[in-house]
């Protein structure tokens, strides 16, 4: 193989700045999408275990819809198809006038998709806490909302912390799909640097290391949270 290695390229202007900026976008997409996924997913998880049939139905339909369509297809649907169903005015706003149209679409698409997965984890956590705990809460006169707030959720989140960590790492990696609608995040930038410099090996090696460093950091952080929130007498091994 006749390849001119040049690791220095990564630290040269403007490529270093590009990589750092692109990492910033990757993190922005991941965090914003996670906020949507976590809050909507938690709400749907509660719905899915609610005593009200209508709420259970809403959440089930949501999960079946969003979990079963490939994420890439969903991103395309939101970006290319969804605006066509809006009035001209709104359509223009979504396609052009709203802040960062491509980025926003990617955030919403990834967030809504991941919400369906978070929902299922929250549901399994609540189920694991158990029907008897729910009854114990109801028996002292708490409303259903109070039982969720004070009994079911605090215990369910402790149980599902490790899979939720995986889910966040997945969102972080899935954020690379935003490049398909033109968001220059880390993976897209790596390709761009390769095209500018023909130093593909270095660029993708750097991307790999950057992705890994972030995920390791998240894992370490979650392990700390797991330890802090662990209950006495439980043998929490941390998220990994």
């Amino acid at each position, binding site marked *: 193989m006749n390849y001119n290695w040049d690791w220095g390229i990564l630290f040269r202007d403007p490529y270093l700045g590009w990589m750092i900026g692109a990492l910033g976008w990757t993190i922005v997409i991941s965090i914003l999408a996670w906020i949507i996924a976590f809050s909507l997913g938690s709400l749907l998880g509660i719905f899915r275990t609610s005593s009200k049939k209508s709420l259970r139905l809403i959440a089930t339909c949501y999960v079946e819809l969003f979990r079963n369509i490939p994420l890439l297809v969903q991103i395309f649907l939101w970006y290319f198809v969804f605006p066509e169903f809006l009035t001209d005015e709104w359509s223009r706003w979504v396609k052009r006038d709203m802040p960062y149209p491509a980025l926003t679409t990617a955030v919403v698409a990834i967030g809504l998709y991941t919400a369906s997965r978070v929902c299922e984890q929250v549901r399994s956590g609540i189920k694991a806490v158990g029907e*008897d*705990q729910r*009854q*114990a*809460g*109801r*028996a*002292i*006169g*708490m*409303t259903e909302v*109070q039982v969720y707030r*004070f*009994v079911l959720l*605090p*215990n369910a989140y*402790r149980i599902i912390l490790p899979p939720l960590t995986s889910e966040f790492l997945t969102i972080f990696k899935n954020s690379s799909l935003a490049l398909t609608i033109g968001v220059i995040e880390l993976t897209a930038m790596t390709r761009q640097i390769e095209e500018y410099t023909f130093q593909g090996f270095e660029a993708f090696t750097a991307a790999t290391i950057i992705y890994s460093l972030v995920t390791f950091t998240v894992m370490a952080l979650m392990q700390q949270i797991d330890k802090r929130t662990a*209950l*006495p*007498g*439980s043998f929490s091994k941390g998220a990994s």
Partner: protein
Amino acid sequence: MNYEKSNMMIKVKSVNKWYGKIQVLNDCSLNVSKGEVIVVCGPSGSGKSSLIKTINGLEPVNSGEIIVSGISVTDKSTNLDQMRSKIGMVFQNFELFPHMNVTENIKLGQTKVLRRTNEEAEQKAQALLERVDLTEHAHKYPSQLSGGQQQRVAIARGLAMEPMAMLFDEPTSALDPEMINEVLDVMVKLAKEGMTMMVVTHEMGFARKVADRVVFMDYGKIIEDAPSQDFFGSPRSDRAQEFLSKVLNH
């Protein structure tokens, strides 16, 4: 037996309940007056737990009526949350909230349901812990306590709501033998103080000592409902006799 109407605490009238095709309660009727202690016994699967859980509406019924202190539990317009706050319940597996320490467990219902202030709830919790003899464990978590201690905390949690009646669903059947008595002692004390109690249990010693009446169930039916002297003296049904001979053998 004649009970004055005003003295009636729990009234169960022709209650039926199905789980799918299986009938778990078959035309059950039962009265508990104020201050009475009722023991419900019978073989497993006879519907005892289902019956006791219908009384505070944790389990819905298919037909029949349940009235607690003049308020219908089976009426759809009744605020069940409010109703339940006035009926204490103790579960077979304690069901303390694992993420809260003992004091917080006892305070939760007081602050969130009865809207007591934190200080009031704290004082009440301390007083109750003294009563169940667990003062030194106030800041431990449920997983750090023995089964018997956990169940005593669960009783204190129920009492914190100042209930008009207490329901016990097999309170000692998940306990090691040496811990059964510490829980029964608390219950005996409670009964002697005049608490209205409905207790599902196999502890016939307890029944004999404090129960006013013993209700025997089998296949979802109330087969016998008799004053405890009569029940232990000469139960009328064969099934109850057979049951007694098995549980009283040793």
